[in-house]
């Protein structure tokens, strides 16, 4: 019991959990479909043409 009382979750773990939460929201909002649409076309700006 003492172990659980004294141990504090490390900051990186909070960061990971926040990341998973935000990723979930992003997936639900369809943000990765937006990224995919951009990524599968040749990005004219990226190659210095657009």
């Amino acid at each position: 019991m003492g172990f659980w009382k004294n141990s504090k979750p490390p900051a990186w773990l909070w960061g990971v959990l926040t990341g998973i939460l935000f990723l979930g929201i992003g997936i639900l909002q369809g943000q990765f479909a937006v990224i995919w649409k951009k990524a599968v076309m040749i990005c004219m700006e990226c190659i210095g043409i657009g």
Partner: protein
Amino acid sequence: MKKLRLAVQLIFTILTNGYAYGYLNGKIYRGRLKYACVPGLNCYSCPGAVASCPIGALQALLNRQGFSIPFGMLGFFFLVGSLLGRFVCGWLCPFGLVQDLLHKIPVFRKRKRLPLHHILKFGKYVALLLFVCVGSVFLFGGFAKVPAFCKYICPSGTLFGAIPLLVANESLRSQAGGLFLWKLGILLLLLLLSVKVYRPFCQYLCPLGAIYGWFNRFSLVQVHWEKQQCISCGACERACPVSLSVHEISRSPECIRCGKCMEACPADCLYFFRRSCKGDSLKREG
């Protein structure tokens, strides 16, 4: 450690840019893997790229109509940053590998930093705020949204995306003009500078390094320092390619976890994972 890091960098670069068909035909991969991002800077218009670039993806979200918080990419940065911090820069970034290799060329007297480093190091935060965030929303397109960092600066896009595509695709080659020459100039300047100065793009311009640097203070992968065992010889600072003192190593946003300090430490007091320290026995013997 040096050989291991080089092997990881090479394998990761080949794996994430392994779409050989693209190089041969001047086309890019269009599969489902591009829903995901690689951790390092890796242009998604590289003919070999099998996944998306995190900075390009962030700008794609910021470029949408209206404004909404880019939760997907914030989540990605929190996840990767909290686990690895700038370990990504040191071990997993293809453009970092290119700069590392160029810095090995035995010409010029090598420098770790540019003059005015204390000011120039903030350049990456300026690039992040001005070109990735603000620029993506309205600044450079006359209120039209453009991926300003990719368009005006990104040397990784020019090297891994533009050059192979223009070589293999004649119709694209005929469209290249002043903007391409501008980006080619930036690329050549940075590549030449890399021969003399250690990773100038990572130290002074990379917005991804600015993001991951923020996570360095608490990421899972850290360079641990056993203070009690330290003999204060300064070997780690001399070996550090970005001249960090032992107090700054790991938590500093500049530390890319290259591991050179660990190799140099005679008391073996710096390490990635917690374990008993060899310095203990050294001191007892002394």
